């Protein structure tokens, strides 16, 4: 039995374990689940170590140290000590008395996110979308495009009205909000229907794995 064949058997065994969950929770599934969680957490830890920790921190500090010893000058790579310091603060969470120090590191991350995403969202979700919705309402020679453009502009307009929080959805305003929800519902339905095909492809792929690769039935 080759190692690949053993691999296929293990894979098939675990696949069935996951599928058995469809009937009900059982030891077979619990085993697959526990193994899955453990292996994935270990995998992610190792990948983080080799691909982020080493190149982003250790390599930079080693470089700083080499420059210091070989050329006798302090170069900018030492700033990574600060980053490392913020990281070490995270580990202080393990000790209840000094754990609050980790808030500095958390604050650094949250602050970065807030500042970066503020402009990003206004640009890509705000201005770009307005730009994309600026469409001519009358397109000469194409009734199709004309109707399409008008529906898009009206739909976007009503959809935005739906998201108003500080005004009661009553009267004409409420009517427009309702039209907005209709547009949202059409889209949600369409997205649902559109996804069925790719989900079925996944199942077909697994069935192929079980029947073709594992059992060799066809």
């Amino acid at each position, binding site marked *: 039995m080759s190692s690949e064949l053993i691999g296929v058997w293990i894979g098939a065994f675990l696949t069935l374990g996951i599928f058995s969950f469809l009937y009900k929770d059982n030891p077979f599934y619990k085993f*697959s689940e526990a193994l899955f969680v453990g292996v994935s957490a270990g995998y992610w830890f190792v990948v983080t170590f080799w691909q982020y920790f080493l190149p982003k921190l250790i390599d930079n500090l080693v470089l700083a140290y080499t420059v210091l010893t070989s050329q006798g000058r302090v170069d900018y790579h030492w700033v990574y000590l600060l980053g490392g310091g913020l990281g070490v603060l995270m580990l202080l969470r393990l000790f209840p008395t000094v754990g609050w120090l980790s808030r500095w590191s958390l604050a650094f991350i949250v602050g970065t996110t807030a500042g970066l995403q503020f402009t990003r969202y*206004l640009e890509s979700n705000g201005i770009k979308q307005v730009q994309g919705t600026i469409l001519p309402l009358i397109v000469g020679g194409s009734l199709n495009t004309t109707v399409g453009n008008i529906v898009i*502009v009206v739909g976007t307009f009503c959809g*935005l009205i739906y998201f108003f*929080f500080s005004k009661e959805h009553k009267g004409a305003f409420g009517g427009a909000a309702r039209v907005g929800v209709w547009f949202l519902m059409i889209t949600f339905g369409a997205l649902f229907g559109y996804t069925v095909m790719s989900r079925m492809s996944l199942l077909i792929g697994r069935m192929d794995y079980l029947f073709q690769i594992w059992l060799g039935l066809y």
Partner: protein
Amino acid sequence: MQKKSHRCSRVVLAVFLLLLLLLLSVGVPNAQQEETTAVPEDTSAQAPAPPTNVKAYDTPNDNGHSITVTWTLSADDGAGRKNVVSYEVLRSASPDGEFELRGMAPAGENIFEDKGAKEKSDANYFPPHKDFYYKVRARSDGRYSESTVSAPAFAYGQWYHKGKTPVVVAVLLFSTFCLVFITVARKGKKLYIRPLAGIEAVDEAIGRATEMGKPILYILGLGSADMIATIASFIILGRVAKKTAEYQTPILIPCNDPIVMAVAQETVRAAYLEAGRPDHYKEENIFYLTSMQFAYVAGVNGIMLREKPATNFYLGKFYAESLLLAETGSLAGSIQISGTDEIAQIPFFVAATDYTLIGEELYAASAYLGREPVLLGTLKGQDWGKAAVMIALLLGALAATFHFQFFLNLFTVKL
């Protein structure tokens, strides 16, 4: 009431069919195009006319390591002998020194950005504040004709990116809206906000868990702390945890990211402190599971079936796992409240959970739950932002209809 909604759905179906017929009468488009077959061009073996008027200048809106070169097309590019195939851009530190090739542009193009690295150690380092001379040559089947040398230019960095002005305007406008209404709200003016079903269900859902004596499961999604949706979820978690502290209902938070776990611990601890029950806070209930999408789902599904939480919250960033979680939760008989800004996952949450916060509602939820005037002020600011967008949409549609290109340019961000 039921009868009415019954009739309504039939009306909708009828309208749907009518619309269908109407749209059909518009006609299905038929793609057909005239074919064009041309005789191959006669490219003579002579060198093309050289490009003229070569200009070099510092590339605007950059970090100072690039120069832009422009020229007037060769007389044989697209006209005349039609034999230009490309342009080559050459650079030198002195007008009569050795020129080196910096790059190519295809025929028809009259601009090239000579860009280099900013690190001195990089082989392609582009020194700023240093004069360079450029020339451009037209190429045709191994034959070249060179332009004259340009005037010198040097690269330098800019303090402001002019292409991003629309974003500056948006930032200022939006911040002003929010700040104005925060001030108004602080002064004690009462602001109306319309009810949201998902929010009203939160209290009920926590109450139900308390009655049943079962825990609440709160899922912060698959995002890390670098996503605003996750941060919005932290804020909501603070409000929810305060209530669970008051009711003394345990709250379980398996996390997909260790930083998210740390922030969630801080949030819940603060909420318990605020509710006056710091002794009931259990850090081990907020734990890390794994960062891999489906392994995380497998673990959470296990928790749902074995701990049987009365209520599940799914708020934050969700991807394909949304339906896996929501279906298992509904199988376990939990009340489920969901919300995300990923439009592709909303349909599954709508289908499989009891209440869904759609897009912006997720971000508004914290203000709804907090009910503090300052937060309601930002909601009002958001509404004004929407109003501004709607006005821009209408004006834009009119401008596009009557071909006022300048209005469109107002919204163009040049990166």
